C-alpha cells in the first residue's frame, strides 16, 4: 500500500529501540538567512556514522536534552556519508536551543524516519520541484540526486518562492544547479531594491512555465499547506493528474514512528506514512479544516 515506506535507522544503536537517540556532534554551522542556519552533524559513533543512509525527503529527530526534540528534514547530499546537513529555522523551543549551540557541541539524533520523494518514478520524466520558503531544504537532496544522474531525467525545473529576496536560501548554489541542467525560477512575495525577478505566488511560475508537458511530468511540492494546495490545483488545471503530484506534509511529531498519535491526519501518521505523500492519497484530508 505504501510504495515509499520508511526505512529503519540502519545503525547499530537505535535499530532495536526507536526511542534511543544517538549522540551527534556539530561540525560546522553556516548562517543562511535571518533565523535560519545549516548544521553539519556527524554521529559520534564511527560505525553508526559509516552505516547511516537516508533517502531525499526523510527527516531526523534532533534532540536537545531538557528542551526536547524537533523533526528536521535532511537538506544535504544523500551520497555524502560522513556527515549530515540540516537546515533549521529557529522557530520553537527546541530549534532556539539549537541556535544557542556551537561547533563541537553534541545533541541527540534519531532517524532517518519517514517516506521519501519518488525519484525512481521520475526516470525518463520531466521533474518540477516547487518550494516555498523553508520548504526548499527537504527538496535539496532531490536536486543533488537529479543532477548526479542528470541523463536519467527529462527537463528539470525548480520553482522557488520566498517572502523576500533576502529570505531566499542557498542562493550561492543556483548557478551551479543551472549549469548542471536545473532550470531555476524564483519569485518573491515582497520585492526589495535590486530585485528584478518575479513578484507573486509560486503557482504563477508554474503557469508561466514554457514547454510544459503535463503528461510526462512529476511534480514535487514542499511548503506551507496552502501553498501546496494552490500549486497542486494549478497543476491539475494544467492537465496533470493527482498521481503525478507529491507533497511533503508537516504535523507535530513526538515519536516519529507512529506510536504517539500526535501527527495523525485522517488515516495517516505523517511521521511514518509521510511526510512525503502522493497527492491523491493525502489531499482529501488536507482540505478538511481541523482534521
Amino acid at each position: 500500500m505504501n510504495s515509499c515506506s520508511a526505512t529503519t535507522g540502519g545503525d547499530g544503536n537505535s535499530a532495536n529501540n526507536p526511542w534511543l537517540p544517538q549522540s551527534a556532534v556539530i561540525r560546522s554551522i553556516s548562517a543562511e538567512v535571518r533565523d535560519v542556519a545549516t548544521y553539519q552533524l556527524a554521529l559520534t559513533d564511527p560505525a553508526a556514522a559509516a552505516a547511516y543512509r537516508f533517502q531525499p525527503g526523510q527527516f531526523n529527530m534532533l534532540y536537545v536534552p531538557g528542551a526536547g526534540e524537533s523533526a528536521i528534514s535532511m537538506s544535504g547530499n544523500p551520497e555524502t556519508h560522513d556527515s549530515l546537513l540540516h537546515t533549521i529555522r529557529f522557530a520553537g523551543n527546541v530549534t532556539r536551543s539549537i541556535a544557542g549551540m556551537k561547533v563541537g557541541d553534541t545533541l541527540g539524533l534519531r532517524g532517518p524516519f519517514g517516506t521519501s520523494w519518488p525519484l525512481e518514478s521520475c526516470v525518463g520524466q520531466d521533474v518540477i520541484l516547487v518550494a516555498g520558503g523553508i520548504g526548499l531544504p527537504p527538496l535539496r537532496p532531490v536536486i543533488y540526486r537529479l543532477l548526479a544522474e542528470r541523463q536519467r531525467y527529462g527537463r528539470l525545473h525548480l520553482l522557488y518562492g520566498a517572502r523576500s529576496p533576502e529570505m531566499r536560501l542557498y542562493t550561492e548554489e543556483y548557478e551551479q544547479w543551472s549549469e548542471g541542467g536545473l532550470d531555476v525560477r524564483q519569485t518573491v512575495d515582497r520585492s526589495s531594491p535590486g530585485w528584478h525577478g518575479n513578484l507573486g505566488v509560486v503557482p504563477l511560475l508554474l503557469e508561466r512555465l514554457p514547454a510544459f508537458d503535463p503528461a510526462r511530468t512529476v511534480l514535487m511540492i514542499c511548503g506551507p499547506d496552502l501553498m501546496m494546495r494552490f500549486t497542486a490545483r494549478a497543476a491539475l488545471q494544467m492537465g496533470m493528474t493527482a498521481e503525478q503530484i507529491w507533497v511533503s506534509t508537516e504535523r507535530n511529531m513526538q515519536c516519529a514512528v507512529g506510536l504517539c498519535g500526535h501527527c495523525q491526519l485522517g488515516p495517516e501518521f505523517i511521521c511514518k506514512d509521510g511526510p512525503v505523500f502522493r497527492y491523491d492519497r493525502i489531499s482529501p484530508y488536507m482540505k478538511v479544516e481541523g482534521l
Partner: protein
Amino acid sequence: MSQEPQTEEVRSCFLSNKQFEKLFEILYGLDYEVIGPIIDQGAITYDRLTSVNDLPRGWTDVQEPGKYRLQERDDDALFGYVVGPHSWKKHLFPPVSTLSVADRTEEGWQFSEVEEDRPKLAFLGVRACELAALKIQDRVFLGGAYVDPIYQGRRAETLIIAVNCTQAAATCFCTSMNTGPRCQSGFDLALTELTDGFVVEVATPAGETVIQALKTQELSDEQLTQASAARQQAVDQIERELDTTDIHDLLMSNLESSHWDDVAERCLSCTNCTMVCPTCFCSSVEEVSDLTGDHVERQRMWDSCFNMNFSYMNGGLVRNNIRNRYRQWLTHKLATWIDQFGTSGCVGCGRCISWCPVGIDLTQEVAAIRKDGET
C-alpha cells in the same frame, strides 16, 4: 456469538474453589506477579493480588451512560462484575515510563536506555473484549516497522487467565464488535465461574504448566451445561448495539456533518473516554531533568486527542475546538484505525459510555450520524 466454537486442541477441566485458592501460590511459585480485580475507591480496578481474598467476592457493578456503581450480590461470585475504569493497558503501556536518559559528560551528551526490572505478569480475570483490546495493542506496538520496547518487554512473558462473562452491563456491546462475550483466543487459560468452582480451558503450554500444578477434575455433563448457560446469560443480557455496516465510509464521508456540532455542545473534552479506553495509545513526551540539568530523562505519559495542546503545531492548534477533537476521536476509533491497523479500535467494552461524565454514548452518536446520512 452464542455458539461454543472451541477448537479441539483446547483441553477443558474443572477446578474447585478450594483449588482455585491455591492458584495464587502456584503463580507466585512460577515467579509471576498476579494482577487482577480489586475494589478500590468504589470501583473494581486491576492491581496486584496476594490471595483470593483480594478479589471482589460478592460484588457486582451497575453501569449506565455516565454511571458506575458497585452493588452487593446475593452470592459469593468472584468475577460477578463486568469491566471497571482500568484496563490491562496500564500494565503493558504504563501511564508514565522513561524512554531514554541523557547524561552530560566531557565528550558531550551520552544517551542510554533504562534497564527496567520487568516482573513476569499474570493477568487474572481478562474478559473477551479485553483479549481483543490486547490483540489491538499488540498490533499497534509490536506489529509495525517499529516496535515499542517497553510494551514488548512487558508483554513477552505475560500469562493471561481469562474469565468468560456470565453477565453483561447495560453499556456492553461486544456482540456488535465481534469481540465477545465468549473468550475465543489470546489466553493461556480461560475460566467460566460456577458456584462451586470453575470450568477451565487450557490453551497453551504456559497454561498447562499452571493447571498441572493444581488438582483438577474431569468435567461432568452438568458442569458443561451450567457453564454454557452462564455464558449464554451474558449474551442474552447485551442490548446495546453499534451497527458497523460500512462504518469507515459512513464516518469519513460525514466529516462535515452538523452532528459533530451537536456532540460538541455536550462533550466536556475531559479525556475520560480515552483514559478508560483499553486501546487508546496516544502519548506525549516530556523532559524531566535534575537540578543541574546534567541528567535528563525523557518520559512518555498518556495523553489524549481531547487535550487542547495535543495538536499544537507552528504556534497554533490544528484541532482548536471540541467539535474537531470529538470527531478525531470517533473517526479514529471506529474508522481510520481500520486503515492503520486493519481492525477497529473499539472492542465494545462500553467504558467510554459509563465513564463519560455527561453520558455521551458513541453507539448513539454513530446511529445519529447514520440517520443524518440517510436523510
